[in-house]
């Protein structure tokens, strides 16, 4: 077995994050996006390093691009990135910065970090795949999944895309909102309600519960876009 086959499990993610951030296993486990990103790459998305350029691959767009250590760790665990690339992250010459750059990071679909950009790009990606009639071998549409933070939802550009996607019925688009209670003024009635009003199918789930996340992403949701609100404990 090649050595790169090591560090491929969920349990290895803290060690991978440790390569970037130092040996702080407890803080690593607290990364709010870690479980969502892991479940997506491990059990939901049809994309591998071998199919990373396949037009019919599923897309994962990390809109919440700040604090990307969990994302890089999952990419490394899944073989998109060399584990050795994690060392020296944020150094000049490293492909891995505090905000991912799609041109530099294998497996990253977008460059992100500035809040409020990923969801409109995801909408365009889903519409583009539809306009090109891109299909998987089984005839279904590839999925486009974008991860945003609840604080990020404050940005108005998201609401432009949420409304348009709902009205255009873009069923291949999924938004996962990692809700750690960081939106300053909050969302009366809850985040899911917001999406629901715009015509999205919605699900609320504990953001650390892998089976619940898997079910939320995969249980049939009809032809509307899908919003999954994944609650995690607020970071202090």
């Amino acid at each position, binding site marked *: 077995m090649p050595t790169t086959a090591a560090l491929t499990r969920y349990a290895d993610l803290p060690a991978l994050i440790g390569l970037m951030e130092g040996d702080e296993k407890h803080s690593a486990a607290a990364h709010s996006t870690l479980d969502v990103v892991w479940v997506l790459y491990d059990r939901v998305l049809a994309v591998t390093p071998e199919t990373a350029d396949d037009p019919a691959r599923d897309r994962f767009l990390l809109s919440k691009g700040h604090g990307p250590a969990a994302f890089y760790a999952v990419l490394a665990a899944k073989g998109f990135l060399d584990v050795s690339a994690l060392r020296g992250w944020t150094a000049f010459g490293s492909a891995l910065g505090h905000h991912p750059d799609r041109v530099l990071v294998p497996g990253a679909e977008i460059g992100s970090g500035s809040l409020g950009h990923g*969801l*409109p790009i995801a*909408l365009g*990606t889903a*519409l583009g795949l539809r306009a090109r009639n891109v299909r998987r071998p089984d005839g279904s549409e590839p999925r486009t999944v974008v991860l945003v933070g609840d604080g990020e939802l404050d940005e108005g550009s998201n609401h432009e895309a949420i409304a*348009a996607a709902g*009205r255009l019925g873009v069923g291949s688009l999924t938004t996962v909102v990692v809700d750690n209670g960081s939106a300053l003024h909050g969302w009366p009635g809850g985040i899911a309600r917001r999406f629901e009003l715009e015509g999205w199918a919605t699900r609320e789930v504990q953001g650390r519960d892998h089976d619940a996340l898997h079910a939320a992403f995969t249980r049939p949701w009809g032809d509307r876009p899908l919003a999954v609100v994944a609650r995690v404990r607020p970071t202090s």
Partner: protein
Amino acid sequence: MREVFGAAVSEAMDDDPRLAVVLAVISAGMFRRAAARHPGRVIDLGIREQAMIGTAGGLALTGMRPVVHSYAPFLVERPFEQIKLDLGHQDAGAVLVSIGGSYDAAAEGRTHQAPGDVALIDTLPGWTVHVPGHADEVRAVLRDALPGDDRVYIRLSGTANRAPLPLSGGLAVVRPGSARSAGVVVAVGPMLDRTLEATADLDVTVAYTATVRPFDRAGLSALVAASGNADVMLVEPYLRGTSAHEVSEALADRRHRQLSLGVPRDTELRAYGTPADHARAHGLDVRGIARAARDFFLV
């Protein structure tokens, strides 16, 4: 120019399955037929200009060729960060096509004017910027831009020259000066006719371009070398001095003088009226250009 744009893009959509039009209500009627013929390829997002650029970025990432269109202030100024990040930073291409450049929408007031659009785009790497001076030039520019993958800004105007010129992508001499001439005048897009008229009695070389980025530095350098003086007057329909740094780069190897005409940077013109009224107020009518040229070329 706007009608030619609508017709040319609609025609091209019949042959090129990569083409998609992204709109925020403006000009939607122009693309109604194309929308019916090509389901899913004319995307009107409603009045959502940030999502318009973000959506274009996503389309480009799937291999589509998005054409994005609105009034200049809504296409360039409002979603400027989207232009920087959702297109440029993603290394994704699109063709942005604006109407209402500078003061075309004179009677609408400041809200519908964007004389800074080209200067803003010019802060971002990798953009080609076309400023056609005639509807036929719009067609030629689109013929080149639509099949590509790069980032192109096309700035349409309600003002045009009487006749189109063949487009080389660089500076073309429209009226040569003598070997002892006072210098070179560069007229951009719709400014050509009035510039020719304003400089009719001067011994200067008048050159034209409908493409300002990349700027034809080598062409300007050659024209200046063949001229009697290294004096260059730039006449642009948008923010004054937008291409001044290009002239400086082009002539960095010699002592030279330069003058930029355009919409003033230091004042907001609070007046309505017509584009001609605004041109007069900005010194961009024939009389204003003529006066500036006589002062600058010391005749």
